[in-house]
């Protein structure tokens, strides 16, 4: 299934997956002498939920940071929307329509949920500083239009009741949801989720899974996610990349990956006799 053809495929539940949106070619990343990622290639197709899994220290977060442009790999190429991506600043990557959430929540703690989510619309605002400080006219109309989009997201993620609440007062699970809201407000073509369920209880995990599936279903957003919880990953994703010690040891549908001996060894350990 992990072929290089440009046509997509159809998932079990009948969703049509499109062509390749992002392609990682022979990526290697080093920090000094430490090899974080060695020679990894895979692609992300339009409309799919793609997971990157692996044990602790496998290099998953590094991989996500390469995708989001935060780390620049020493070797290899990143192709996005059919073109090779040059070295970019993270904000330039964001302008290309890639949004992300963070493993350790990175919200503006003192600001309200609404304001936090509104920051996701920054790239869609065209009026200048001066116009915004005078506020009347164009800037106002623009804010109203953006607020409308944000309200749709708030409604979608069911966080109406905390709209005006400062983020610092929210419990962990809700903060995660607010972060997702901010990323969605960007209207991304590729959404990166860094351990969206880390530290959550079962109920929160179920809610989050439902939101991720709904986002993909409702807006057709391509999602790449890193996750620890194997059960969640296998249920959510269309295709999975498995990493261990910076190397790719498996790639395919959840069922294929589950049966892969290298993956089983990485997760359960191998006897050395």
């Amino acid at each position, binding site marked *: 299934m992990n072929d290089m053809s440009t046509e997509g495929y159809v998932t079990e539940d009948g969703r049509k997956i499109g062509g390749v949106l992002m392609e990682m070619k022979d990526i290697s990343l080093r920090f000094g002498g430490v090899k974080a990622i060695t020679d990894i290639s895979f692609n992300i197709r339009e409309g799919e939920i793609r997971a990157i899994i692996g044990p602790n220290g496998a290099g998953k977060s590094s991989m996500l940071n390469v995708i989001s442009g935060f780390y620049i790999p020493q070797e290899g190429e990143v192709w996005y929307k059919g073109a090779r991506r040059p070295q970019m600043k993270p904000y330039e990557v964001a302008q290309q329509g890639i949004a992300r959430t963070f493993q350790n929540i990175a919200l503006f703690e003192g600001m309200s949920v609404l304001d936090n989510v509104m920051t996701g619309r920054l790239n869609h605002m065209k009026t200048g500083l001066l116009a915004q400080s005078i506020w009347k006219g164009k800037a106002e109309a623009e804010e109203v239009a953006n607020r409308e989009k944000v309200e*749709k997201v708030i409604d979608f993620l069911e966080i109406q009741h905390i709209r005006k609440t400062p983020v610092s007062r929210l419990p962990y699970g809700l903060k995660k949801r607010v972060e997702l809201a901010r990323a969605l407000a960007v209207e991304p073509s590729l959404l990166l989720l860094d351990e969206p369920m880390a530290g959550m209880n079962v109920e929160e995990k179920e809610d989050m899974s439902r939101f991720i599936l709904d986002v993909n279903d409702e807006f057709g957003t391509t999602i790449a996610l890193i996750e620890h919880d194997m059960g969640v990953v296998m249920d959510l994703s269309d295709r999975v990349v498995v990493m261990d010690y910076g190397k790719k040891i498996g790639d395919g549908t959840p069922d294929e990956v589950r049966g892969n001996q290298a993956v089983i060894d990485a997760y359960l350990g191998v006897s050395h006799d």
Partner: protein
Amino acid sequence: MAQSSEATGGLASVPALLQRNAREFADKAAYREKEFGIWQSWTWSEAEKEIEAFALGLINLGIKEGDFVAIVGRNRPHFYWAMVAAQSAGAVPVPVYQDSAAEEMAYVLEHCGARYAVVEDQEQVDKLIEIQDQLHQLEHMIYVDPRGLRKYDHHALHRFSDIQEQGRAAYYEWIEDLKARREKLTYDSTCVMLYTSGTTGKPKGVVLSNRNVIQSAKNACEFDDLNAGDEVLAYLPMAWVGDFIFSIGQAYWTGFCVNCPESPDTMMTDLREIGPSYYFAPPRIFETQLTNVMIRMEDASPFKKKLFDYFMAHARKVGPAILDGKQVSTWDRLKYKLGELFIYGPLKNTLGFSKVRVGYTAGEAIGPEIFDFYRSLGINLKQLYGQTEATVFVTVQPDGEVRADTVGVPAPDVEIRINDDGRIFYRSPGTFVEYYKNPESTADTKDAEGWVDTGDAGFFEPDTGHLRIIDRAKDVGTMADGAMFAPKYVENKLKFYPDILEVVLFGNGKDRCVAFINIDLSAVGNWAERNNIGYASYQELAQHPRVLETIQNHVEEVNKSVAEDEMLSGCQVHRFVILHKELDADDGEMTRTRKVRRVIVADKFKEIIDAMYDGKDEIYTETEVTYEDGRKGSISATLQIRDAQVQPVKAQKVAAE
């Protein structure tokens, strides 16, 4: 028949009232709902169009006169429209509690044989799909919120707006049919069927006619002078008779506006934004609000807290008297005015009660302290006694004659009779038609002359003519020494403490009373946080020694106050436990309207009760719990049983004679 539709000017059905409102109040807001952060509104003429489109869509889908349409969702304009649309098409709406577990829902839908179900979202659709095998009659499901449902098989599943669209497209095909069906509706046709949750046994379908609903709504509106300018917030379960009467009956009779909250969690914010002029809530809501106020005052600065305490003490002293227009000294009035400026006004504003002209509490007895708290702020909160079978109203309190311990005088056109054993019977235009498919129960409850047994015991106060409810007739008992046992009285006293959420008192036929207590997690949790007490779960917090001690103090306080009452001093609590779980409707321990099912609780926790009477100090227990999605789990805990100090029982008059 005693009344004909002439009394209401020929308006013999809810759809007829809709037509009138669309003419007379065409541009006045009929519905509002907060969506996407903004209050969206529909005028009466717009609402009429929406309802017509949906009714046409239903006819297009093949709905027949007399069909049942289940309505499962939280308060949203769409569901009110769906109910009136169903009526317009000659069908009968059956609102169902949306938080019911799948089996409960299956029972109701199977019992009425609903062919159509209008539901809110994916959650409800999934629930109905799960029980589809048991529902042979269910043919079509219509949902409002399309989210997550795109991939579902849409052969028998439709989107609300699509049905309306189809209705508009087929306008000329069906409009004459719709009009004809609407014309056929009379005062005697069924208006709605509501399932009573019932503290015992299976739910029963109460059939209410247009006469019941319109006549009751009209009488109640006249009693409180409600008019088209009033505003209500619709947040109570749609399956409850109260919501049907307020949000449909009275709203359609007077033409006032029904406001729907954005989500269940935003209710308090929405309440404040709307500032309703007519407000209705079960005691539970008032208790929760009071608890929240008290918690927040605990966190306030010492100066603010002092100010609050000072003025609240003053309000308790003179507030109710001022509200009732009684004589109060000028100095006290002045001080009350000052309090209004500093405390009462802002507090009422925060609670969303600034504009409340008429507020009602019903469904259960309210603790006098809670009741007085709101009245002392100047909120015209009154009590009402009613039930589904009476289309709500049995007795109401007129303005100026409000007291915490009575439920008022008979509502307009209601006759009341009290039997020798204290049981209350009534007869009124609101008296229900029958229990659906259950003639035995109908005959048990309603006699040939139309008198209905309330199941409650009470008496009329000789001086004022106000009705006083003692308790559910079957809950009132006698203790081993012949003294009266009335659990509600003691439970309500305990429930006034913000720490205590629920109490169940036992003692019928025994020599002393024991009690189960549920702590209020928000109040006690807040207290624990302030006192640096760590806890991982409800069970752990409930068994914390300091929590037990606090509750023990409350119990002993209440014992003192109960001992004052000559009739009930035997009901003092000798021993109590704090339960390891909250009583929950999902586990069948409460009804959906949150009334305790005493018999079930007593049966389920029998070993704990036995241990309390056996004099044990602690008991290990394991209980099965049901999660909202129907899965089951179990929780276990070792509960400590505490002894509470009791006051000597006063020599009882009854015994002395």
